[in-house]
Each structure stands twice: as C-alpha cells, then as structure tokens.
C-alpha cells in the first residue's frame, strides 16, 4: 500500500461515477469522462441538468421576489442561471440559497445601470433572514418605561433575533423594495434620497418600516451591546436633530428589541 493511501484514498467506483456525473452536470459543454459518455449521449441526460437548474432558479426567484418584479421574470431567470453556475447550492435548505446574490448583482455587467438592484436584493435577503430567524422574546416597552433615568442610560437593549436594518446613503432603496415586495401598483414618483429600512418579526409575520440614519446608528450600537446612553450618542452623532423619544417609541412599536440587560459590552464612546 502506498504511504499516502490513507490520506488520499483512491475513490471507489461509486465515488468515481458521482465525480463524473457531477462534472457532466456542472459543465455540460465539456467532454464527459469515458465511463459516463454512454449516459451523457442519451437525450434523457438533459432531464437531470434541466431539473437541477430549474430547482435552483425557482429557489432563487422565490427568495428574491422584489428583484424579480423589478427586472421581470425572464431577465431574472437568465441572470439566475449565470449565478447558479457560479454558486450552486451547498446544502439542501433552499430557503437559504443565494446569500451572495446581491454581491453577484454588483458585478453583473448587464445590471451595471441598475445601481439600486444589489441593495434591493439585500432587503429581500433580510426578509428571508427575519422570516427564518430563531424564535425570541419580545420586549415589553413597559419594562423600560418604569426605569429611573440614570438606570435607563446604562440599560442595554438587545435587538430581537429577527430584526434587520440598513441605511442606504445613495438611493431610496426602502421605497423601491417595499413597492416591489408587495403587489403595489405604481404610487407617487419616487423621490431620489437616502433611506433606511427596518425589518422585524415581532410575531409570525415579517413587517417593515423606514428609519433614518440616526435610527440605524442607534441599532448598530445596541447590537454591539452598548448602553442606551452610548446608543443615543451614536444616533445624535449621525443625526444632530434626532428625536430620541420618538425613535425609541417607533422601534418599540416595530418589535425591534428582545430584552434588556445592564452589563454594557462595548466601551462607551468607542463603538
């Protein structure tokens, strides 16, 4: 037995068959391995290739409905077929398939002029993450309302496991995404301005609202484990005229937080 046999075992006939079959599936235009030629020349071999491609594209389309609605199904499925070849699924939970699709769109030449498309894809992805996130406690705003002011400033608000947010400094991604996520017919003309989005799943259903840059900075600080005082400073640094009381009441109403604690994890002023 060669010295390296245990490190690099010679694959058995079944493994060799699977290597060759997979190769023929992923690169149908290149010459198949000799033992597989008798299979790939049968017209029925295409059934497997087509079924797999359709399964992957269907999954991606289901996960990116706003992108699909924006570009149309035909354009989407063509782009998706390129993506599937570059990044086939690595596990069978297809609800999670397409994590890198937004980044793919950023470099996808035919989408170069649709500068908003990758960020719309990011919000579709956030919806999926919020939908499938672990169940979590939902913070009762009353538990914060009763705290003394000095205690309040050192309280930490932990975002709910399903909460996702992002600030888009170049374009009205929230408006574009939310109009295309639902079957909303064209509303008012979209005003080209920066926008933020907050997605939350306080109970069963994923819900979303728009938030400003200060709100996103506040949530970023909370996610790092900063105290409410430090999170408020972060929000004020981002947006000098922010109404903190209103911001917190909006976030509480949206179900953005899970629970409170009193041990800050981040250095005050260095978030």
């Amino acid at each position, binding site marked *: 037995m060669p010295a390296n046999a245990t490190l690099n075992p010679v694959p058995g006939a079944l493994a060799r068959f699977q290597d060759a079959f997979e190769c023929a599936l992923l690169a149908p235009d290149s010459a198949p391995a000799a033992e597989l030629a008798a*299979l790939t020349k049968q*017209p029925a071999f295409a*059934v*497997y290739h087509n079924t797999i491609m359709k399964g992957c594209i269907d999954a991606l389309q289901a996960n990116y409905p706003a992108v699909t609605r924006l570009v149309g199904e035909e354009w989407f499925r063509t782009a998706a077929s390129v993506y599937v070849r570059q990044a086939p699924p690595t596990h069978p939970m297809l609800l999670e398939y397409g994590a890198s699709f937004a980044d793919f769109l950023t470099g996808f030449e035919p989408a170069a002029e649709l500068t908003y498309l990758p960020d719309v894809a990011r919000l579709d992805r956030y919806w999926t993450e919020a939908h*499938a996130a672990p169940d979590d406690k939902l913070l009762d705003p009353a538990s914060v309302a009763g705290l003394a002011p000095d205690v309040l400033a050192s309280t930490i608000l932990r975002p709910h*496991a399903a909460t996702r947010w992002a600030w888009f400094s170049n374009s009205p991604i929230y408006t574009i995404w939310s109009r295309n996520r639902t079957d909303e017919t064209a509303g008012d003309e979209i005003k080209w301005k920066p926008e933020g989005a907050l997605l939350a799943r306080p109970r069963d259903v994923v819900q979303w609202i728009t938030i400003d840059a200060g709100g996103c900075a506040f949530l970023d600080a909370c996610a790092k484990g900063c105290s409410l005082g430090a999170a408020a400073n972060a929000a004020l640094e981002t947006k000098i005229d922010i109404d903190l009381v209103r911001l917190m009441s909006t976030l509480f109403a949206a179900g953005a937080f899970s629970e409170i604690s009193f041990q800050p994890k981040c250095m005050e002023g260095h978030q």
Partner: protein
Amino acid sequence: MTTVLTAGLGLKPQHYAAALACPADGLWFEVHPENYMVTGGPRLAWLESIRARHPVSLHGVALSLAADAKPDAAHLARLRELARRIEPELVSEHLAWSTWRGVYHPDLLPFPRTEAALERIADNVSITQETLQRRIAIENPSHYLHIKDHARDEIDFLTELVRRTGCGLLLDVNNVYVSARNLGFSAESYIDAFPGDAVMEIHLAGHTPDPTLGDKLLIDSHDAPIAPAVWALYTRLIARIGVRPTLIERDDNLPDFATLYSECEHAAGLLRSPLRRAA
C-alpha cells in the same frame, strides 16, 4: 393503538389555511423536511398547527443515501430535531443521491446498482435509522437513463436493502410507470413483483411528456393530475397488498386545495372498495 393512515396529501404553503380547516377524519399530510429546517418563525409554527390536528409524514429529498459518503451529520441532526418536534407518523427518503462533495443538486440522481453501492446505502440507511431511532421507508425514484453497469435490478436491490437494514419501502407508482415507459419494462410486472410486506407508504403523482422528445420520454413532474394508467396500477397494487398510507403528491402547477383533495378522496375510495377487500 396506532393510527391507520389511508389517503393523504402533500402539504404546500399555499394550502396551509385550507389544510388546517379541513375537518376530514383520517386525512394526513406530508412535507419535505428540508423546507422546515429553520430555527424558528412561522414555517415551524404552521407545521406544528397542522400536526396538532392531522398526522404528518416527513419525506426527505436530500439525505443523499446513494452518495459514496456518509449522510451529512449536520443535515441528519436537523432531521432528528425536526422529527423530535413534529413526531411524524412516517419518515422516508429516496434510493438516490443529491449532495456530492459539498454541492447540493436538487434532484434524485441515479447510480449503478452494484454490490459496493448496496453496502454503502445499507450503511447509510442504518446510520439514519439509528440516529432517528425509527424505521424509515426508501422510495424507488424515476429513471430516465439506461445504465449498463447495474448488477441487480431495482426490486432485488431494494429487497436486499430491507433484509440488511430492516428498513421499509415507499412504492411510488407513478415513478414505476414513468420508468417503465422510459426504459422499456413492464410496469405491471414490477408492481406485481414488489415486496408488498415491506411497503410502508405509496405515492401517486402526475407526469408529463418531455417538451422536446414527447411521449418517448416521460418526466416525473408532479405538475398534473394522476394519469388513469397510474390509477390502474395503484388499484392492481392494493388489490394484492392491501391498505397502505397513500399520498397524492403535487409540487407544481398547483390547483386549489379542493381539487387536490378530490384526488385524495378518490384514493381513499379505492382503499375502501369491496373489490379490493374481496381480492
């Protein structure tokens, strides 16, 4: 006393509300566990609500038992967790592979039925049954390709798998019809020779001709009503082996719940028929 399942339906998200409201006694539902392997949220809540009112079966499509590798430990652990949560009446998988060297191909892929393949699959079925602490049923997939390296025919292979592992079988009658037409064997002979005692579940589904090759190549598409020829094979099967849990599968081109339910009632009627009891 354990429940005796008769006719059931594949559960689709579009039909959750209608399925939950359906008062039918004895109706059961089947899902692909891969669609419910989430850590929380409404999907699991929906499935748990259905489970509270109806028996549920977990029909896996991704354990990749026929790959020349052990089942993915993380996937198997997720399946065990879902089974713990849902307490399914039945758990099944396919005589096929779909995951290979870290890539998942959403299909049920063929392989040469050799002795080495039988050993590997028997090991994988045993690992799965030990992990889940239950007997699982293995389904005959649809075939499209002539593979010359088979050492055993499918029934012989499945029979030996049952003998070695104690697993049960899931007989998909539509897959038999599609494979028989595509590969040129007798569907009736296959149905008659299938080891009836091992059958834990039966599947019925629709198929369609290939868009380019037409009737020369049938596709197991699950996007059409069950064909009369498949109903005839089913009637022949249950006349021989008796009542078994029978699932109506539909995954694409979905009609409303009532239309699917009428196919389910048709199967239930055949399971009750005097002709079958007299046989």
